[in-house]
């Protein structure tokens, strides 16, 4: 069953067409990667899907509902959670609180003004479960700003997971990670993709080729190819536009 359908979606920055009449279809339990050279419009596409930027034209349909033009917080509540290219976390809060507040925002109870935070028992327990899954339990009481870069990237995935996504958009999750962290994160993403649909923007071709079910290639705002990792590696157009240049 399809989970997200993007129809003829465009976004103009002044005179520049950052996203150009993109059509995409994501299905459930699929791990899709979007690749393309810098400036191809991958992050802008994420921003338009999640309501950070308005769509200039076209539609975004999530599980049969037209979500074009909805605000970010509504789109999150529909079930699309994301991470950012540059880590976006709550630096001054503890690791635990980072995930807990995200879980609370999904779970409800934010209007309670006189009860204690840990009175939301389910939120507390689920936060612990998420931290355990990320391997951050030991660091739960640290301030997020004191985490290593790699752990901050990981924490942001945790924040996104706490929003109980049906579709998870990850923007270069392994950027700046050590090889070992990259390996662990790749494993994590692979596991996640069994439960939720994942869309990955990634520059690390080893990661992309090893875990993607399907790859879409973006170039100058448009989708120029789509297929399995094998098909993409054999595609002449892609080699020319993107892979070829690196060889």
């Amino acid at each position, binding site marked *: 069953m399809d989970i997200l359908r993007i129809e003829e979606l465009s976004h103009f920055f002044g005179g520049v067409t950052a996203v150009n009449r993109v059509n995409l279809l994501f299905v459930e339990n699929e791990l899709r990667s979007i690749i393309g050279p810098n400036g191809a419009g991958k992050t802008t596409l994420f921003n338009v899907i999640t309501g950070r930027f308005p769509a200039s034209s076209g539609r975004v349909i999530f599980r049969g509902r037209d979500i074009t033009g909805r605000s970010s*917080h509504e789109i999150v509540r529909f079930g699309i959670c994301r991470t950012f290219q540059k880590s976006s976390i709550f630096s001054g809060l503890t690791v635990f609180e980072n995930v807990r507040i995200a879980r609370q*925002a*999904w779970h409800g109870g934010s209007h309670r003004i006189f*009860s204690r*935070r840990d*009175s939301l028992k389910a939120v507390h327990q689920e936060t612990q479960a998420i931290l355990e899954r990320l391997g951050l339990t*030991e660091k739960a009481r640290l301030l997020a700003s004191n985490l290593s870069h790699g752990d901050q990237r990981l924490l942001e995935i945790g924040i996104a997971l706490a929003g109980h996504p049906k579709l998870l958009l990850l923007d270069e999750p392994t950027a700046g990670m050590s090889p070992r962290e990259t390996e662990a994160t790749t494993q994590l993403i692979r596991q996640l993709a069994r439960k939720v649909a994942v869309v990955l923007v990634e520059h690390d071709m080893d990661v992309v080729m090893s875990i993607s079910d399907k790859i879409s290639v973006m170039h100058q705002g448009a989708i120029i190819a789509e297929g399995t990792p094998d098909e993409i590696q054999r595609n002449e157009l892609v080699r020319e536009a993107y892979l070829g240049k690196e060889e």
Partner: protein
Amino acid sequence: MSENNDSEGERDMEASKRQSRTVLVFLLLVGFLIALPFFMDNRFYLRLATEILIYGLLAMSLDVLLGYTGLLSFMHCAYMGIGAYTVALYLKFVDPASSWWFLMILGVGATFLVALPIGWLQVRTGGFAFALLTVAFGMMYYTIVWKARGVTGGDDGLIGLPSPDITLGNWVLGSLKDPISIYFFTLGVVLVCYLLTKRIMHSPFGAVLESIRENEERASFIGVHVHRYKLMGWMLACTLGGVSGVLFTFLKCSVSPTVMESSAGGALLMMTLLGGVGTLWGPFIGAAVYIFVQDYVSTMTEHWMIFLGLVLIFLVLFTPKGIAGFRDSLLAGEKK
């Protein structure tokens, strides 16, 4: 796994120990404040202590905005002014014999009603734009109060207002004219406000405000309706400011536009920063230091602001978290 549980248990014990120590310090402080009138028979200083409590409450309400929601207001004093003027105008023109609780509801209600549309507009912005809007609206209120001479008395303000009795049901407990009564009355109201606010900031709702302070964009991308919660934080801060305004008129039996001046807004910000943002209790210390220095040094020189400026520069350079930051550094040192 069991090792992990052990260390967690230890940490919890440490946390509860620290918590009980905090409660002890709080109770000692409250005990001191209750005992204060019995060993300080100088009425002037008792009124000064009352003023410190009132400005402490106002500075604490600014802390809700600045330290918890991450919004900067240069003119938070305006919302004290609205509460103060509402009560003063009612006492002067409508009913000089109204009861204290009616005036309290009236002053706080009026502040709420003014703050709501202004807040609705302001929360659509953030950062500098928000701060500038607080200045713009603050100057507007000030000009209205200053120019509407026929109603507000212009820069003379409203003076010689009657003070209501402190009643509880049919009992008359005292008159707000009496310095000891107004001191205890103010202490009671301020304590209730402090405890309620503390409770609210530690609630799930307070957690949402903190997330907005830390990263507004991230907050909206976990599904928080950021405008709505910023507005709620704003309304809480302004309502508490309104309470302090009502207390102000009760204490002074007068009110003048100086409470709403831009320099009053700056002084208030200084009290909050001096005490330490994000602590709620810090601003009370800040207000105490500020008002005490103002009173003490101004008897020696009219340039007392210079002295206060030096204190502030010292604090900003060496303890960016204000006086409350000292305690944290002390605790951290203890741990090492």
